[in-house]
């Protein structure tokens, strides 16, 4: 389908909306509630079916689009509000709701906070709420509808309660029964008028670009409130909604459902087992496959035929967090020391000993499942086989029975064939005017001692400061006072100190203390505004080289490096900020010179990672200088307009998290796969100089790498796909180790298997990273269209190949991908992927860097923020229940926390309970609250305050990031900022709302189907 035509959300959406609305009107649920198979509790599992239209009877209205001419509605003003939501999700109903709710049309009550009539259960409320409405609850009503919906459970999900009968076994499809296209309610505009789709004539060509009339600027919410007869529910009553977003599949619902059904213990004993969602709390028992905390694949059943994969357009990729920690109650990772023999490896592909190796020949040889070669077992490693052909010691050796384990590496795995020394941390602090004035220097120095407590006592630390020159500090404990050694020749950096620069933290504690008193004093009246970034990095690198250590530089930098005397001079490109979002945006998103890239490479070569902490007040060209961090496996952290008194806790908190996080240095990662597939593209922060080795100066638990895998060849259906990820690194204690993750996936011959075993969060993570990677050589428009098209193809292929035959107008979503449109919309409106002109190029680049290292667990909330009520009776801070990210869900008399992993807002409704205010802020009236300077909640002695602060602390700990708290009062200016994160809504800069996007997606799919 050529929908390709410009998708212009602004203009088209209204139409779509209308269509939907109109369709839905009569919406009859196609399936009876009982039929619907409801998977889980999650309320919204519905899938909007796109076709909201009735499949059935209203042929006329809903035209499947064949016709070319889609005629724009004549009247621009749709009645937006008019139609109740029509989306029907197929599975609206939670299984639990045993009874079928009588409601016929159940318009599914999404729990709205207020707008909906009371009857509807609160969606947020957790599992239970799902139940209420019968299936019909969601616009879909009539159970009896035959084709309606199939919601077979995924195989993977154990606890599916009732399966709809009709449903084809495929779990995933839903389609909504399109309601009978109800004629528009009274108030509703006549279809024709609005250009409602349904009428054949009207929609000649649904998708065609031309089809949408550009000029129809309807505001989505139209005046008229249509009444839908069909929608008994709130919709009608409230009269304010057109298409009820609550009918759409809800992320919250899916997560809650998964938590319910999949929480508990997850055993990795089978290959191709689809793991619980990342949001689900579960424990992993490692029985031969790596825990999903370390590796997640986008799919767990890999089509044997490359063509099939291509057809579905579902990416095959894995996202690896190689150094993540097991959860608290899980078993720690075992470490195997095979002594001087070193790890046992396949003779051909060099894969490491793993459960994937099969011992043969009485245990004298083993066959590698990756490359099929057989290798002699080294005599020291020999062990007899038991009657099942397993080694007798299988259960004693982690490398034979676990998916994840470590080997102690021998000398030949080490740099220069010498066992490593402890890696060092070097703090490289910009002491130019900006940082001194903002109080950063003072702040860091005063907290340095406590920050260092996070490091092992033997870890060497060193300090460098710089402005237009670079200063090294000798903190040898034998000196009476620290010595400062200044290297003024920044064009030709070198290491001036041999001893005393890197000293084990515990030994030098007094000297460091002393130094930390001196540094602020020395620079308190500095007038230097220059800070030479490149030489400072070089300085740190040289220092590490000189001490023959690897390590990490923590660089605290404030200004655009503009000194003529130092290499790495950058020019200010901020004048070009208008370019963001246009085809030329890559000129500001790509590095302006190669200096920092080269520097990064050099650092990796020396085993040095660079973490950038930026404290800029102006353009600093994150795109260029961030390359150093990117290539070395570091991160870019940005604290614009930093002021120590306001942002102090944040940077200190971030640093503490950073330093305490598990980390590996001087690492090389290699992904090996069984024959037939091979890793092709890598996304993340690292350096690749060839096609296989991912080189990292350092990698910590918070960083993930996405790896796309492609077919080389056809696979056989019964063999499976095996992946071994080996990370060679140096621990913080200076031990060289190999961490191995093994993952076995199924192969399948049926497309349905693929759809049943998809991992949407991982897909989104990968797609987003891929989009960001492309943004430096493609145009935003092309990227966006590409993502949409791919998404449409995934769904269309499913519809075509796997779903039960049904009316073409129906939107049928596979169970595993039912949130795909929602998430894709979130991705497309995310700052990292689609920077707009409201964003500075720096922020955009920063977001891009951030995204590239995020694991699946982080991207979930990064794209779909957590919105949690924190006041009032519904607040359950111990077991918070997020609600959907929509403005509509915010109630005036309550307060909410919104958290994306980077931002943290506390939104306070205008008529919030004064007691709550008093308990939290110590003021009785919202007007008295000065929110500007608040970044932490005040220390009020009340239970509520303690709980809320504890909750925020928990959030930050989970994120390993001290997110700054922004307090937003309802109707404050800041609300605009926060609104951007209410991702189900339409944004001020024109990104469509969830509903709108879904409609658009439906149209695209139809277009594809009609091709």
């Amino acid at each position: 389908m050529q929908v390709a035509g410009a998708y212009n959300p602004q203009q088209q959406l209204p139409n779509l909306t209308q269509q939907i609305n109109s369709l839905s009107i009569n919406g009859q649920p196609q399936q009876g509630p009982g039929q619907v198979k409801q998977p889980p509790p999650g309320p919204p599992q519905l899938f909007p079916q796109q076709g909201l239209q009735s499949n059935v009877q209203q042929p006329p209205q809903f035209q499947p689009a064949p016709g070319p001419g889609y005629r724009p509605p004549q009247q621009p003003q749709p009645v937006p509000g008019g139609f109740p939501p029509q989306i029907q999700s197929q599975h609206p109903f939670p299984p639990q709701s045993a009874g079928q709710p009588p409601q016929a049309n159940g318009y599914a009550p999404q729990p709205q906070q207020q707008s909906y009539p009371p009857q509807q259960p609160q969606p947020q409320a957790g599992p239970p709420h799902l139940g209420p409405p019968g299936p019909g609850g969601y616009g879909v009503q009539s159970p009896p509808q035959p084709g309606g919906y199939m919601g077979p459970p995924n195989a993977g999900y154990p606890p599916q309660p009732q399966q709809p009968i009709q449903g084809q076994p495929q779990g995933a499809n839903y389609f909504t029964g399109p309601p009978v296209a109800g004629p528009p309610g009274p108030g509703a505009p006549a279809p024709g008028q609005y250009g409602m789709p349904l009428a054949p004539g009207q929609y000649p060509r649904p998708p065609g670009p031309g089809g949408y009339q550009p000029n129809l600027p309807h505001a989505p919410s139209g005046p008229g409130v249509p009444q839908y007869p069909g929608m008994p529910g709130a919709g009608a009553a409230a009269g304010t909604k057109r298409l009820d977003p609550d009918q759409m599949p809800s992320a919250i619902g899916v997560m809650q459902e998964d938590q319910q059904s999949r929480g508990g213990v997850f055993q990795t004993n089978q290959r191709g087992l689809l793991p619980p969602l990342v949001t689900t709390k579960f424990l992993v028992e490692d029985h031969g496959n790596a825990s999903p905390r370390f590796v997640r694949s986008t799919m767990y059943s890999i089509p044997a035929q490359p063509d099939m994969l291509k057809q579905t357009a579902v990416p095959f990729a894995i996202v690896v967090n190689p150094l993540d920690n097991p959860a608290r109650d899980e078993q720690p990772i075992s470490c195997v020391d095979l002594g001087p023999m070193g790890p046992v490896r396949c003779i051909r592909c060099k894969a490491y000993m793993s459960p994937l190796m099969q011992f043969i020949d009485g245990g004298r040889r083993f066959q590698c499942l990756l490359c099929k070669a057989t290798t002699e077992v080294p005599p020291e490693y020999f062990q007899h086989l038991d009657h099942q052909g397993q080694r007798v010691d299988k259960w004693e050796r982690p490398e034979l029975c676990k998916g994840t384990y470590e080997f102690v590496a021998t000398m030949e795995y080490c740099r220069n064939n010498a066992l490593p020394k402890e890696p060092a941390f070097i703090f490289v602090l910009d002491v130019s005017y900006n940082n001194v004035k903002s109080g950063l220097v003072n702040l860091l120095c005063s907290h340095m001692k406590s920050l260092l407590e996070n490091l092992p006592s033997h870890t060497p630390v060193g300090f460098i400061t710089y402005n237009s020159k670079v200063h090294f500090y000798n903190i040898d404990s034998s000196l009476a006072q620290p010595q400062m050694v200044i290297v003024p020749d920044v064009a030709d950096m070198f290491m001036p100190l041999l001893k005393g620069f890197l000293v084990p933290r515990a030994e030098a504690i007094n000297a460091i203390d002393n130094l930390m008193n001196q540094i602020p004093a020395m620079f308190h009246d500095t007038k230097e505004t220059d800070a030479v970034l490149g030489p400072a990095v070089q300085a740190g690198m040289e220092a590490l080289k000189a001490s023959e250590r690897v390590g990490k530089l923590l660089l605290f930098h404030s200004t655009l490096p503009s000194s003529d005397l130092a290499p790495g001079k950058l020019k200010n490109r901020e004048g070009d900020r208008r370019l963001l979002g246009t085809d030329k945006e890559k000129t500001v998103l790509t590095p302006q010179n190669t200096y920092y890239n080269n520097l990064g490479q050099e650092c990796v070569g020396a085993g040095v990672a660079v973490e950038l902490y930026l404290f800029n007040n102006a353009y600093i060209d994150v795109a260029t200088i961030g390359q150093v961090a990117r290539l070395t496996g570091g991160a870019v952290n940005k604290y614009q307009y930093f002021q120590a008194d306001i942002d102090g806790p944040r940077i200190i908190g971030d640093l503490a998290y950073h330093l305490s996080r598990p980390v590996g240095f001087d690492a090389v990662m290699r992904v090996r796969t069984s024959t037939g597939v091979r890793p092709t593209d890598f996304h993340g922060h690292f350096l690749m100089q060839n096609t296989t080795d991912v080189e990292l100066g350092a990698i910590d638990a918070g960083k993930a790498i996405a790896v796309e895998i492609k077919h080389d060849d056809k696979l056989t259906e019964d063999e499976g796909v095996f992946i071994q990820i080996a990370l060679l690194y140096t621990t913080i204690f200076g031990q060289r180790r190999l961490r191995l993750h093994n993952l076995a996936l199924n192969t399948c011959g049926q497309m349905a298997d693929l759809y049943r075993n998809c991992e949407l969060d991982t897909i989104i993570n990968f797609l987003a990273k891929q989009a960001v990677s492309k943004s430096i050589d493609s145009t935003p428009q092309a990227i966006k269209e590409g993502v949409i098209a791919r998404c449409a193809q995934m769904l269309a292929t499913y519809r075509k190949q796997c779903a039960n035959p049904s009316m073409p107008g129906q939107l049928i979503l596979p169970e595993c991908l039912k949130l795909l449109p929602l998430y894709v919309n979130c991705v497309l409106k995310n700052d990292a992927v689609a920077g707009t002109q409201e964003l500075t190029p720096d922020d955009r680049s920063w977001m891009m860097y951030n995204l590239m290292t995020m694991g699946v667990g982080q991207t979930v909330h990064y794209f779909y923020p957590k919105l949690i009520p924190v006041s009032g009776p519904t607040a359950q801070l111990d077991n918070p229940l997020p609600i959907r990210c929509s403005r509509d869900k915010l109630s005036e008399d309550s307060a909410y926390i919104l958290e994306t992993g980077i931002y943290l807002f506390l939104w306070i409704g205008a008529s919030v309970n004064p007691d709550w205010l008093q308990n939290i802020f110590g003021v009785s009236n919202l007007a008295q609250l000065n929110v500007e300077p608040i970044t932490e909640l005040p220390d009020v002695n009340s239970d509520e305050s303690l709980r809320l602060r504890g909750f925020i602390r928990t959030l930050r700990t989970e994120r390993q990031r001290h997110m700054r708290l922004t307090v937003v009062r309802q109707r404050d200016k800041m609300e605009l900022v926060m609104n951007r994160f209410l991702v189900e809504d339409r944004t001020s800069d024109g990104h469509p709302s969830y509903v709108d996007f879904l409609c658009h997606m439906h149209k695209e799919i139809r277009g594809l189907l009609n091709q």
Partner: protein
Amino acid sequence: MVIRWGRLWPLPFIEMTLGEFTTVDPFKVVKVVESQVTLHRRHPLPRRAIKEECPPTRRCLYTPLKERNDLPPIQYDPVLCTRSNCRAILNPLCQVDYRAKFWVCNFCFQRNPFPAQYGAMTEQCQPAELIPQFSTIEYTIMRAQVPPPIFLFVIDTCMDEEELSSLKEAIQLSLSLLPPNALIGIITFGKMVAVHELGCDGCAKSYVFRGTKDLSGKQLQEMLGLTRQAPGQVPAPGAPGAMPGQVPRQQGPVNRFLQPLSSVDMYVTDLLGELQRDPWLVPQGKRALRSTGVALSVAVGLLECCYPGNGGRIMLFVGGPCSQGPGQVVNDDLKNPIRSHHDIEKDNAKYMKKAIKHYEALGVRAAANGHAVDIYSCALDQTGLAEMKFCPNNTGGHMVMGDSFNSSLFKQTYQRVFARNEKGELRMAFNATLEVKTSRELKVSGAIGPCVSLGVKSGCVAETEMGMGGTCQWKFCALTPSTTTAIFFEIVNQHGAPIPQGGRGCIQFITQYQHSSGQQRVRVVTVARNWADATANLYHISAGFDQDASAVLMARLAVFRAESDDGSDVLRWVDRMLIRLCQKFGEYSKDDQNSFRLAEHFSLYPQFMFHLRRSQFLQVFNNSPDETSFYRHMLNREDLTQSLIMMQPLLYSYSFNGPPEPVLLDSSSIQADRILLMDTFFQIVIFHGETIAQWRAAGYHKLPEYDNFRQLLEAPMTDAQEILQSRFPMPRYIDTDQGGSQARFLLSKVNPSQTHNNMYAYGGSMPVPQSSADGGAPVLTDDVSLQVFMDHLKKLAVSSTA
């Protein structure tokens, strides 16, 4: 002021004879021992400066800062001749009209009015500068007060612990010898060069530079964040009455590296205390990487940026050769020995040219800014003095060579740098400029001494150059009371202006310098000599000949030539000059060798030349290039007496027969029952004759009945101590016995009148000057003896064909 040889003005002059200045140049030596200056300059000047044709012309040795206690304290400015191209200073030789208050310049004959403050002057009441005794006079310029001297220590840290700690001690000790207001700075170097910021609280700061990369002054200035002061715009110390030490602290960063000793005393002591050896590992078979070249460059640059035109010393302490970067003299591989004279001759010294260029440029820069560079080199091997010599030579700095910083030779010598006079002032002066003015018939053709030419042309500059010529002004960045320069003059026949019979030629030496107390002073010496007619009054001329001074001047010229010419050429030139002199002033009949006689004033001159030819100044055999440079450096700056000792060592003999007596520097003086004390300036050798040595070995001096023997043994030691106490640099002290290995120091100096070649041939027929039975000891050498030399000289001098 006294002129040692021709006396000062009011006395009858014998010296300057007037002759046919056009044709024959009589020997004229004006030896101004007592006053002030010495000039010397080698680098840019081509050696054509000394033309072969030109026999020794009139020349003098001038010691600008000769210590004198009779100088009146004069606290006003000198009166200058008003003629713009003259500007000579009023002196006792000028004609004065007391009534009309006019004076006539004795150089240009300009009539000048006296300034108003001289109104009260009468013939009976003369200002000091007109009183004949004060032909040497020193003015203290009160209005131009300069800051105290600067001492910048540049310390090598590539040495072993013991050496370094001795060096640190020595430097710490020297801090107590400096005036408290002196500005001091510290640079240390090894593989890298560190400039230490002084007086920072809490955290010692230093700026570090790579040892392999030279930095221009401008780069250095930017990197160190220095603000440049306009030359001469030194911080004025408030009111003139202010304590000299209280130079107001300058604002800005300038003072971070150079601060008054009094305020950073403790800091510097701690800094030196914590100073560590260069930490970089020196692998087996390698030399330490030492960046002397860059360190010196940084030091010169630092002073150049901060205090151009203010007196200061850069004191460089090195414990080995520069092995990397600019100024490298050898690489760090011990397989490659440092260059020898042989290598240099064969053009095998790979780094030498570049290094010389580097140090020479530094020397010029330092000199241009008035900063002296001292080099204290203590190592068993060479350290590259041959390359670095330009720095001290151009700037008047010291060069000291020793084996170890732990030796008393270094310690004493170093301490002596900071010697003080009776008034408690440091015996050194800074940033001096010597200007020479001559009356019309005389022109200055050059100078040889520890200085550089300032390139100032004036009417009294001769066309021919000798030494550093083409100028009438020279810069001495540092002066000591003994610093002596040779100055060469030329007599010019000005057409139409014949030199008046009975007239006098005048020379005025004007030395402006920065006194160690921070005052600007001007010392003026004016001398005059009668003109004599060479054809008519050759006697006068020869009577005015000062053979000592002449020998020293000849040595300087020869050394100056030797720096660039081949050694044998120089020797031939020296011979030719000597022969010519003998021809001119000797009395002889042609071709009759035996008739040759020299007048008394010339009698010792050939002997000086003989020893000069054999000396380490012209013979490089057995000396390293560093040693040669060191010896030549000393010859180039010391005064007449010391220079003579260097050329022809003194030898004293001690015996039971009487008090110590000077004896001939001859192998015949070596007697078994005597103790000899030889002073070569660089070494003091005590040489025990064979018998004495045996007695000593037998321990007789410990027996009470042989107390006289003990006294005999002690006598030369006591005398040696006296010399050791006073000389700079401290000589090497050698105590040896006849037949001992160290005896070679003596044997190589004495005239080999008895050698293995002639001891049997001549048998006992050799005249034995001493009464002792056995006639000295033979020296195993092929060198010719003085007797042979003299024979040849006579033969050539009288030869009509020569």
